[in-house]
C-alpha cells in the first residue's frame, strides 16, 4: 500500500492540531505567573508546581484521588471478577442478561446516573428505607455528599470497564488447557488458581488500568455526589480555572494529573509484560 502516509495524515494532523498543540500551550501556561493571562509580564517559574506540594488543600486532593482510585479499582475487581466468571460459565439466557445489564449503564449519561444516586442516597431515599427496614440503622444516614457516595457511584460507573476485559480474557482461554489439566489430575480449585486466574491476568490488568485512569480524571460524579466535601484533583483543577480564574495554577495541576496518569499507565504496562512472561511456560507445556 503506497498511500499509507496519505491515509494516516488526516487523523494524525487532526490530533496534532486539536490536542497536542493546545496541550503544549497548557504546559507553557503552567510555568507562568498567576497574572500572565491578564497581561502582567511574568517570568518562567516553578511556583505553580511547588504549590501543589506546599499547599495542604492541593496535597489533600492528590492523596484523596489516589485513595479513592485504589478503593474503586479494588471494588470493581471484587465485584467484576465473579460477575465475568458467572457470565462465562452461564447458559445463553443468563449470560446475555448479565451482559446487557453490564453494558446498558455505559450508554446512559453519567449525569443521569449521578442524578439517580442523588435520589437513592437521599435522607428519605430508598437506601435509607432499606437499611431501616433491615434494622441496621435507626436514624437516616447521611450518605450523599460523603466519600462513600462517590465510591459507590464510581464503582457502578466503572464496573463495565472491569467486567468486559476480564470476560474477554476468560472467553479466550483455550478449553483444551483446562481439560488437559483435569485429565492430568488437577482439582477444580487448582485449575481456577493456576490456569484461569493467570490467563485472565491481561483482563485484570486492562480492567484495572481503565478503572484507575477513569477515577484519576473523574470530575462529574465526585462533583455531583461529593459536592465540595470530596476534594479530588479534577474538581480542584476546575475550581482553579473556572471559578478562581487562576489558569496557570490549574494548568500546573492538570500537568501533574497527566504525569500521574502516565506513571500509572507505565506501571501497569510493566506488570502486564511481567504477567505475560509468567503465562509462557504453560503454553510451552501445551505444545509439548
Amino acid at each position: 500500500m503506497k498511500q499509507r502516509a496519505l491515509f494516516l495524515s488526516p487523523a494524525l494532523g487532526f490530533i496534532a492540531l486539536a490536542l497536542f498543540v493546545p496541550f503544549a500551550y497548557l504546559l507553557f501556561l503552567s510555568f507562568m505567573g498567576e497574572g500572565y493571562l491578564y497581561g502582567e509580564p511574568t517570568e518562567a517559574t516553578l511556583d505553580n508546581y511547588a504549590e501543589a506540594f506546599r499547599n495542604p488543600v492541593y496535597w489533600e486532593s492528590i492523596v484523596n484521588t489516589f485513595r479513592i482510585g485504589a478503593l474503586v479499582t479494588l471494588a470493581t475487581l471484587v465485584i467484576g471478577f465473579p460477575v465475568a466468571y458467572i457470565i462465562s460459565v452461564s447458559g445463553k439466557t443468563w449470560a446475555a442478561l448479565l451482559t446487557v445489564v453490564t453494558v446498558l449503564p455505559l450508554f446512559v449519561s453519567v449525569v443521569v446516573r449521578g442524578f439517580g444516586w442523588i435520589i437513592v442516597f437521599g435522607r428519605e431515599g430508598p437506601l435509607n428505607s432499606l437499611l431501616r427496614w433491615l434494622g441496621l440503622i435507626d436514624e437516616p444516614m447521611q450518605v450523599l455528599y460523603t466519600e462513600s457516595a462517590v465510591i459507590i457511584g464510581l464503582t457502578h460507573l466503572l464496573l463495565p470497564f472491569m467486567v468486559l476485559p476480564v470476560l474477554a480474557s476468560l472467553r479466550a482461554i483455550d478449553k483444551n488447557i483446562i481439560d488437559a489439566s483435569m485429565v492430568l489430575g488437577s482439582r477444580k480449585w487448582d485449575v481456577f488458581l493456576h490456569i484461569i486466574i493467570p490467563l485472565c491476568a491481561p483482563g485484570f490488568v486492562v480492567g484495572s488500568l481503565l478503572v484507575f485512569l477513569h477515577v484519576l480524571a473523574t470530575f462529574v460524579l465526585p462533583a455531583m455526589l461529593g459536592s465540595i466535601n470530596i476534594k479530588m484533583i479534577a474538581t480542584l483543577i476546575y475550581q482553579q480555572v473556572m471559578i478562581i480564574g487562576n489558569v496557570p495554577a490549574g494548568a500546573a495541576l492538570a500537568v501533574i494529573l497527566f504525569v500521574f496518569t502516565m506513571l500509572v499507565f507505565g506501571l501497569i504496562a510493566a506488570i502486564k509484560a511481567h504477567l505475560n512472561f509468567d503465562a509462557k511456560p504453560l503454553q510451552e507445556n501445551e505444545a509439548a
Partner: protein
Amino acid sequence: MKKLLSVLYVAFMCSPLLIVIGAAFEPQEILRFPPHGLSMKWFTRVLHDQAFLDAAYNSLIVASLAMLLSLLLGLLAAYALARGDGRSRETILGLLLSPLIIPELVIGLAILQMLTLMNIATDLVVLVLAHAVICLPYTVRLLFNGVSAINENLENASLVLGASRAGTIVRVTLPLMKNSIVAAALFAFLISFDNTVISLFLVDSSTMTLPITIYNYVEFSLDPAIAALSTILILLSCAAVGIISSVSGLDNVGPRK
C-alpha cells in the same frame, strides 16, 4: 450462589436507573422513590420546555457530526495501519489513542485556553471538533481490530483478479467490517452525546447540551422534571443497546484490550 450473586448484581446495576424512572411519575413537586401516585405531567412539561428542546437539538447535531468526523479519520488511519507496512505502527497507534490517556478534563482545559489565545468563540463547531478528539481513539481501535480480523487473502484475491485498491476497499474490505463500523459509529455517537466534562468547558448559554443542562439543573433544584428528562434518555439508551445487540452483538461494543 451463582443465581444470588447474579440477582444482587442486576439489582445494583439497575437500581439508579429504575429509581430515576420511578421518580419521574411522581405527581407532586417532590423528588422521591417510590412515587406517591402515577402522573405524566413532568413528561409533558419537559417536552414543552424550550431550554430542554434546544439542548436536545444541540446534543444530536454535535454527536452526529463528531461521529462522522471520527469515523472518517478512524477508517482511513485504521486501514493504513492494518494494511500498510508495519513501520512505527505502535507509535502511530499510540499517538492516535493518546486522548484515552490524557484526562478529559485536561483536554477540555487545554482546548479552552487555546481558543482564548486565538480569540475563537466557543460554538457548536468547536464542540464537534473537541468531541471528535475523544471519539477518535474508540473508532481507531474498533476499526483497526475490524480490518485486522479480515482475512487479507480475500482482499488479495480481489486485487489479483483486477480490482483497484479503492474498488477492493469499497467492495471487499468495508462490507466485511460492517459490524465494527456500526459499533464504532454508535460508540462515537454516544461518547459525544453523553460527554459532560469537555462540554462543561466549551459550552455557553446558546450551545447547551443535554448532559450540561441536567448537570446545571441538579445543582440548583431537584424536582421530577429532571427525572422525566432522564427517563427519556434512559429509554433512548435502551433503544441504542437494542440496535447494537441486533446488528453486532453486545460484547463487541465494550472497551477492548
